[in-house]
């Protein structure tokens, strides 16, 4: 196992045994199939080794948790995200996306799609200029807009659907969830050490925040934010 120093931006495998890490090929293979939870969360913890390139990236200092069974699809998170970051309303610029089929069957009718702050961030790996990077202080994967050349490799590299990295077509740069670190249009302090606007404003309290790497399954984080009061309303809590 790698010897992890959380105070540093990089990590080196202590014993040099690549088998204890997860190769990028393994990672990509795992995505979308069985085992994604083990690959994305909890296996290594803290920091991660990509032995093929000796590239190492610190873990994010925080993660958004979503309980899709509790989501009401009101898109308040999307409207909030756009507003606090851009100062205008545009759900295409929201870094969290809610997709829903009005005719669908619960619980398969809706999804909350948030950046998972991947341990192995393909978006960071793909960026040719270093614009997509892990924040030095918090480890949050984010975009230095001044360095972005608009190649969209990060957008295409994200292994999830929809891509958690998006092209801001109005301001011409890539962007993604920064856990509200750069929110000039919000009166609160955001970021991994602060608050997140979607968490604060979700009227269903279906989004939460954690500093620990969450357990995951193929379907996403294994999260249940529904307590006994929610059950009294006649909705499932299991």
């Amino acid at each position, binding site marked *: 196992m790698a010897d992890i120093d959380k105070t540093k931006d990089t990590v080196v495998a202590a014993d040099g045994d690549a088998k204890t890490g997860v190769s990028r090929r393994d990672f990509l293979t795992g995505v979308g199939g069985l085992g994604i939870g083990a690959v994305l969360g909890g296996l290594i913890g803290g920091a991660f080794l990509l032995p093929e390139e000796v590239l190492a990236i610190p873990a994010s200092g925080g993660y958004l948790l979503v309980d899709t069974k509790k989501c009401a699809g*009101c898109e308040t998170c999307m409207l909030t995200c756009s507003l606090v970051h851009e100062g205008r309303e545009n759900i295409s610029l929201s870094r969290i996306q809610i997709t829903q089929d009005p005719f669908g*069957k*619960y619980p398969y009718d*809706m999804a909350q799609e948030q950046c998972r702050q991947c341990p192995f961030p393909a978006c960071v790996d793909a960026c040719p200029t270093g614009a997509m990077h892990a924040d030095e202080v918090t480890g949050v994967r984010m975009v230095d807009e001044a360095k972005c050349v608009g190649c969209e490799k990060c957008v295409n590299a994200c292994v999830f659907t929809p891509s958690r990295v998006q092209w801001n*077509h109005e301001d011409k740069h890539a962007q993604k969830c920064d856990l509200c670190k750069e929110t000039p249009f919000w009166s609160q302090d955001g970021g991994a050490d602060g608050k997140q606007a979607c968490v604060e404003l979700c009227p269903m*309290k279906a989004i939460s925040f954690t500093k620990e790497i969450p357990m995951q399954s193929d379907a996403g984080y294994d999260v249940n934010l529904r307590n006994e009061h*929610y059950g009294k309303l006649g*909705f499932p809590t299991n």
Partner: protein
Amino acid sequence: MATGGYVGKILFVNLTDRSTEEIATSDYEEYGGGHGIGSALFFERVKDKTIDGFHPDNLVTFMTSPLSGTLAPSASGRTETGFISVHSYPIGWYTRSNFGGRFSGMLKYAGWDGIAIQGASKTPVWINIVNGKVTFEDASGLWGLDTYETQEEIWSTVSHGNAADGTWYGLDTSRDSGRTTQRPAVATIGPAGENLVRSAIVLHDAGNAAGQGGLGAVLGSKNLKAVSVIGTGSIPVADPKSLVDIRFELQNRFGYNVDEPTLEAPVDNFSFYGAITSRPGYGPLILGIDQPARPQGCMGCFKNCRRKLASGVSNEDQCVESLFYMAGETQAIQNQATDMIDKLGLNVYDVKDHDYLYALYKMGVLGVGKAIDTDLPFDKYGSYEFIDAYTKAIAFREGIGDDLAEGIVRASAKWGRLEEDLASGLLKRPNWGYAEHYNPRLEVEWSYGSIFGDRDINEHGFNWHVYWMAYIRSMVGQDPIISAEEVASRLAEATGLGDPMGFDYSEVGIYGEPKAKVIAYHRHYTRFWKQSVLYCDWAWPMYINYNSDDHTGATPEYEPKIFNAVTGKNISFADGLEIGRKIWNLDKSIWVLQGRHREQEVFAGYVYDEPNPAPYSLPVYENGEWSFSDNLGRSLDREKFEGFKDLFFGVEGWDKKTGWPTRATLSGLGLDNVADALESAGKLGS
């Protein structure tokens, strides 16, 4: 001039020659948005106001507000429609209806503050709006499809199959046009609209309908199957920081805390309690409470009234939609029945009178070989077989359905029963042929507002407090949260009217001057804040709040606070009421030009002649004391109601003899051109 909220232009569509035009929103900004702008456009562009609703010149508006598509709480998702009705009786008044969902937000992301549609296409067509690009698409392949099938076809066509996968897709070949993960927002008619059923609706997503007025039939007469919109643009917000802070403050101060509620129903899964607490998912009442589900909300809502169900059948339906077929033998049948009227595109408040038909069947008047001859299987009333046959007969105008497609009132008239059945109350249609919603003899801000207007008003602002609060508490053996006296005094304070006697529903109170001021206030409030700014009826106004100990509601503080944060304007609550008064007078003038006279503003016979047969709790002031009375045995007094009209017209500044607005009143509102039009028609009040 606003610095936020509006996106700048309204799309005008002429279906006859398939041309389009851009109208500057700023020219109409004085009306706020929604209904106000729609009425101003209608007044200008429909030269002959006396045309029938099926006439090609009938102008249909789909309007947004500055708050649409923003974080404004429970105001972001409503779309207001305006048009000449084909549903009201005996005259098709200029009318309105609005619906929830996400259509209005998407329209603004596409760069449009509204759509105005005039003319008629020779062949079936649907309008495809992709950002600034508007195209007319052949709808011959969609004609005959139900509302769900139509939307699925259009979603797939516009997104090139991508929307169903939830992936990002571009709106054209350039990445600069932006990408979306969303399905286009589609408003469509079903078979009922195509077949000109007078109660036909326009449906959006699963359960959002412009219900009253027959807009579905109007679009059907224009050969317009659907309007689809997808957009990736931005809406400016004048003060983003304030808007976020206000939203946070409002929902934490007044909303239902799902994790730690302050007031919780004493019985689990008791949806009705939501009328007091605004708990999520209460809208469907009892429909679907037997199956796993989630709450579901319109764009930007903080309440999330509706539900999506494990069966997916009757998703998003609520309120009266969920009560459509209570005679249904099982919950599943009731779900399917409600789903069916959504798909066919029928208005529940018209077709729910299958119970009237069943009464005629039991009386031996209706059935095989009877005076009203039909082979609809009334012997299987309660089964799915019955409701399936009944709804399809109306939507496709088969057999007796051809009569019913004219609306239950016109059908009853054709059968020679209308006068008798309205007099007895066997058919409860108190005003303009629309269904009884709340007791018209008693809950008079509802019935008076309806008869002085154009439709069943469907405005619950007072109703939650004067009717539902005490009633629901009694359903679970609880006393009212606050007394009748406190309800009246809080409503008097929150409205700014100051006089609790305006909320006295006694046999004295409903005919008094304070009540006339309440009715006028209610017309003005709703015309601006609810139907033009588009605060949702199920959330606003918030006069009293039961989730906090002090019971203080968000009204009147928050309506202007939110509006100003979005638009950068600085209007007061009272300013909004005055704009509402202007819009209300504009509407009234349109009705006058259509032929309105005070003599027409009378209720169906049973409202006057049949005593209230069941307990109906409302605050009354009797013998020097306030109480929630059961009001048994009361009816409306004809003479006293006529006297009340004098008071009400006096408050409005209208001619007491005719009910027509005067020049002084219209001029005072900046409506000189409207006064001129009335004068030319010989219909200016004196």
